[in-house]
């Protein structure tokens, strides 16, 4: 390896360290699966390496990485879902599905540290069914509008709204038990 390559490689390592948590978070919140998210994050950084000459000096590198991670995660889910549908019984209509109960731990969440509470909420989010978790993540983390989410997922606007509402309702008991209030969580 030449000195130029070594320097470029270490520069890329620094770049990767700066963004890997963000890329991984995007992927894991959408897929709900750490192993799949790691594969997706790896793919994102391999793409970044190919265009690193332009990316290293770009102020929008973070946004680019986040968009690529989101699109790869959605493509992954879409491919997996098509395969699943093809080989499996069609699931019952998800519009009629009963609301999901997110388990609230027996221990009083009020006694937990902020980090532990965060972990509980993160786990509850991952535990939501995909059809609620994905639009919820796209709305709250990726800041897409309802219309954009409906277009991206190829479903109706009303379904997106219903799924997001049910996802929020499923998370609410956990948030209440943890004592998270708007004022507290923003601080």
């Amino acid at each position, binding site marked *: 390896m030449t000195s130029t390559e070594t320097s470029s490689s270490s520069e890329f390592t620094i770049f990767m360290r700066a963004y890997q948590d963000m890329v991984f978070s995007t992927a894991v919140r959408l897929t709900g699966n750490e192993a799949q998210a790691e594969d997706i994050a790896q793919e994102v950084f391999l793409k970044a390496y190919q265009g690193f000459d332009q990316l290293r000096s770009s102020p929008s590198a973070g946004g680019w990485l986040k968009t690529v991670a989101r699109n790869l995660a959605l493509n992954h889910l879409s491919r997996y879902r098509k395969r699943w549908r093809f080989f499996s019984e069609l*699931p019952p209509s998800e519009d009629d599905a009963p609301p999901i109960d997110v388990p609230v731990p027996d221990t009083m969440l009020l006694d937990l540290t902020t980090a532990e509470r*965060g972990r509980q909420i993160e786990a509850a989010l991952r535990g939501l069914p995909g059809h609620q978790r994905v639009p919820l993540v796209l709305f709250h983390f990726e800041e897409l509008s309802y219309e954009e989410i409906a277009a991206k997922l190829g479903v109706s606007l009303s379904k997106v709204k219903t799924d997001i509402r049910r996802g929020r309702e499923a998370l609410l008991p956990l948030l209440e038990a943890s004592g998270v209030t708007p004022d507290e969580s923003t601080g």
Partner: protein
Amino acid sequence: MDQERTIERRVHEALRGLPPARAPRTLEARVLDAIEGRAAAPWWRSSFAQWPWAARAGFLGASLALVLAAILIGQAPAVGGSFAAFQAHPLMVVPGVSQAQALLATFAVLRTALARAIPTGWIYFAFLLGGLLYALLFGLGTAAYRALYLGTPAQVSYR
């Protein structure tokens, strides 16, 4: 509606307050290994666009020559060893070319003879039977997949 807005705000602030999930320690090593692996791979294993220009030109030339040769062989009649025949069809002197052409001609004769000998109804029946057997095998494969490899629907149905 107000209650819904309150829930939306509350969930939004709780979720946005979460720190990013920590990437696994193995990720960095995996990416660097993959980059090294790609760099060490021979040029012909990379995408065509990344081949050296000489290799790309050579490949395109060879492909074109192959197509032209196939067309010439297909059009040329069976020729003997005369000079006149060579002048007319130079490819015929290449070892194996005339044999290949003879083989193709034999297949053509065989196909014509079979088409005459076998009633059309039988041919349709054979195609239908083949299709049915394919569908049966596919159905068996699907049933086996459902029975043996069912996963968790929550991971896959995101809509």
